[in-house]
């Protein structure tokens, strides 16, 4: 590594022309009601709020705000469906409906991907290649379990818990809805689901798909609104189980609210994952993994690899590679097929990220960002990394939920395990080394729900996902993802 040598240059010649995905094939209504008992209903609050495209702040649609009466209606529809057709139906028949939902998602994948990108700001490359296929895969996977629960839990007589209240975040709107709804239905429960207020559209499109799949009315109810609506679901007396994905702060509030009640819960909360590069790692692939680990979906990922630990002997070269790779990323219109970095999901989230960028600089860390033109409208943050960081820096301690990487160095494996575990979170981690024994040694000592080796952010419906410590409890995905929806 020679520090005198100039960085590589990635623009100024053969810059790509725009290649936007078309939007003329999608259908969006001007206004969406609440999906209760198989129909779209006007909210009894009569309130609607706008959903905008965070990449240009243009209006997309009006979304209904569910109040107490609407929540009651949704829960009672879910209860009626649970007591009625759904629990009496044979498991095999139940499975057919779930397979049908999966197929319809695949059929409409292009439309769903475009709407996901319009509503949430994520690059079309991601919604097309990750969000929508994984959503369909979850329905397919759990549909298969429906008539095999007695084999999954032999001699334990699994029974559905009843009505599940599910509150999901804005980072993977359709995918999170699939993660929640698919296992709940497979195990024979009924559902009241609330998407995040900035990204309701694909959940509402999923409601249309559920209508089209002819699911018995009331089995899935999708109601929209902000925090108050979520609180209404959490506190509702006739809900048997809460599944929440979101911030650790809100997760703690929910756990307090349901303390002493009979509600089961799964919490998938925040993270501050360690991504660890050893000197014997395949460095270029490690760098690519770090880029995907933190800048995928603009870092709006609970399992994002936001803390990078690099062994000191390869620190200079890794940093150089990282900086050059950042400069080769393309930020811009999320609908463009070549976009790597899309828009920040909301103005509020951009404010949070910018606050942390300021804190990082005030703490004396060195900031490096992608140099590129930033669109005038919409919410944007270029991919950012901080060096000169220690465990004591706020940017290394708190979840930023944005495209911000904090880099530290280490000398020995024991040191890095201590530092990686030195956090209240424990959702995920990554390790990069060519040595198999090192992988097994390290992963067995890591206090994190998911540890990726020589890859990062790989998701599969067969694989359980969830946290240690303040990153939550319970698992989603795989066989483990069935248990929170069952009583034995």
């Amino acid at each position, binding site marked *: 590594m*020679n520090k005198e*040598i100039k960085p590589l*240059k*990635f623009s100024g010649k053969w810059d*790509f*022309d725009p290649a936007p995905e078309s939007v003329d094939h999608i259908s969006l209504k001007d206004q969406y009601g609440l999906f209760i008992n198989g129909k779209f209903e006007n909210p009894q609050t009569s309130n609607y709020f706008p959903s905008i495209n965070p990449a240009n702040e243009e209006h997309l649609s009006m979304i209904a705000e569910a109040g107490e009466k609407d929540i009651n209606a949704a829960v009672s529809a879910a209860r009626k469906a649970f007591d009625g057709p759904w629990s009496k139906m044979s498991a095999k028949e139940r499975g057919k409906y779930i397979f049908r939902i999966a197929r319809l998602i695949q059929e409409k994948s292009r439309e769903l991907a475009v709407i996901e990108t319009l509503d949430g700001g994520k690059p079309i490359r991601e919604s097309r290649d990750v969000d929508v296929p994984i959503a369909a895969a979850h329905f397919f996977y759990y549909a298969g379990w429906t008539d095999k629960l007695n084999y999954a839990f032999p001699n334990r007589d699994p029974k559905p818990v009843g009505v599940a209240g599910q509150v999901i975040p804005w980072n993977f709107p359709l995918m999170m809805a699939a993660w929640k709804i698919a296992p709940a239905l497979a195990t024979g429960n009924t559902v009241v689901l609330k998407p995040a207020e900035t990204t309701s559209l694909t959940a509402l499109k999923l409601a249309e798909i559920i209508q089209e799949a002819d699911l018995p009315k009331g089995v899935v109810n999708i109601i929209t609104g902000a925090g108050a609506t979520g609180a209404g679901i959490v506190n509702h007396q006739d809900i048997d189980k809460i599944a929440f994905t979101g911030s650790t702060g809100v997760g703690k509030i929910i756990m307090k609210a349901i303390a002493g009640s009979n509600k089961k819960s799964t919490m998938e909360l925040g993270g501050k994952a360690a991504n660890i590069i050893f000197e014997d790692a395949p460095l*270029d692939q490690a760098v690519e993994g770090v880029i995907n680990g933190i800048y995928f979906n603009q870092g709006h990922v609970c399992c994002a690899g936001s803390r990078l630990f690099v062994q000191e002997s390869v620190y200079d070269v890794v940093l150089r*590679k990282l900086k050059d790779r950042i400069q*080769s990323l393309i930020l811009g219109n999320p609908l463009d097929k070549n976009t790597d970095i899309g828009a920040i999901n909301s103005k509020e989230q951009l404010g949070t990220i910018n606050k942390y960028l300021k804190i990082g600089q005030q703490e004396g860390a060195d900031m490096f960002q992608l140099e590129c033109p930033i669109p005038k409208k919409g919410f944007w943050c270029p991919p950012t990394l901080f060096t000169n960081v220690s465990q004591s820096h706020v940017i290394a301690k708190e979840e930023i939920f944005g495209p911000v990487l904090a880099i530290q160095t280490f000398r020995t494996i024991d040191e890095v395990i201590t530092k990686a575990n030195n956090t209240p979170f424990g959702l995920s981690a990554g390790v990069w080394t060519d040595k198999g024994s090192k992988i097994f040694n390290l992963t067995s000592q890591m206090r994190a729900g998911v540890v990726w080796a020589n*890859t990062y952010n790989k998701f599969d419906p067969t694989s359980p996902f969830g946290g240690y410590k303040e990153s939550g409890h319970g698992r989603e995905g795989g066989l483990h993802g069935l248990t929170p929806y069952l009583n034995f």
Partner: protein
Amino acid sequence: MGAFISPKVDKVGIEDRVNRITKRSIKKEAKLEGLKMALNMVDLTTLEGMDTVNKVTQMCYKAQHLHDEFPGLPTVAAVCVYPNFVKIAVNALKDSPIKVASVATAFPSGHSSLDVKIADTKMAVDAGAHEVDMVISRGKFHMGDFGFVYDEIAAIKQACGTSVRLKVILETGELGNLDNVRLASDIAIAAGADFIKTSTGKIKPAATLPVTLVMLEAIKDHYYKTGIMVGMKPAGGISNSKLALQYLVMVKETLGVKWLDNHWFRFGASSLANDLLMQILKQSTGAYQSANYFSKD
């Protein structure tokens, strides 16, 4: 030999990266620019047992007159022939910017003595070749005799002198895995290669995107250490424009725009040129023309 410690390569990671590169969507002006750039990087090649003076002469004419009906086209970068045809090619191309490259060193197997290989190289150089494409000794490489491989490349580099650029063919289809591709790249670069090249075209698989990415990363690491740029030439199996553009995207996003020039990047191909021509005309006129309108020399 302990002197060569190359970074490890993760095949799955390489394939992920390649997959992402191939999804780039190159449209409109960028597409036309890319196609012309690729055409300008082609080493028009004939390396057959049945090569003749006439065949080489015809190819050299084609190199200068790719498609005269369409003005403003670039020329190819070079023609690539066996040493005994270098003089013919140099003579045929003397008024053009097109370079003459010659394979040497007992191409394609590389099985001969160093003296013969040096003589083979000198023959090409003395006949006026601008570039020499040598093959490494893959047998010695597999035996772990990396010092031998290194010394041989260094000797051929010396035989080339200062003005003839040396391309070192690794024959990646015979190296077995990506770690070996990386190691062979590092050895070739350290021994003085001006270019590293994937294949002879005689072995399958020839050039692939994953192999090329590994080699580009070796070039990048050398640049980081020394500031010296090394060229890259994937050869064999690149027959259509779409694939050629994917290679260029890979170069751009791995090494940056400085390498997007035929001084630093080449395609070893013979049928690619006509496909590029066909696509360039399609981009300009909006319609595909019959393959019969493009000369085959």
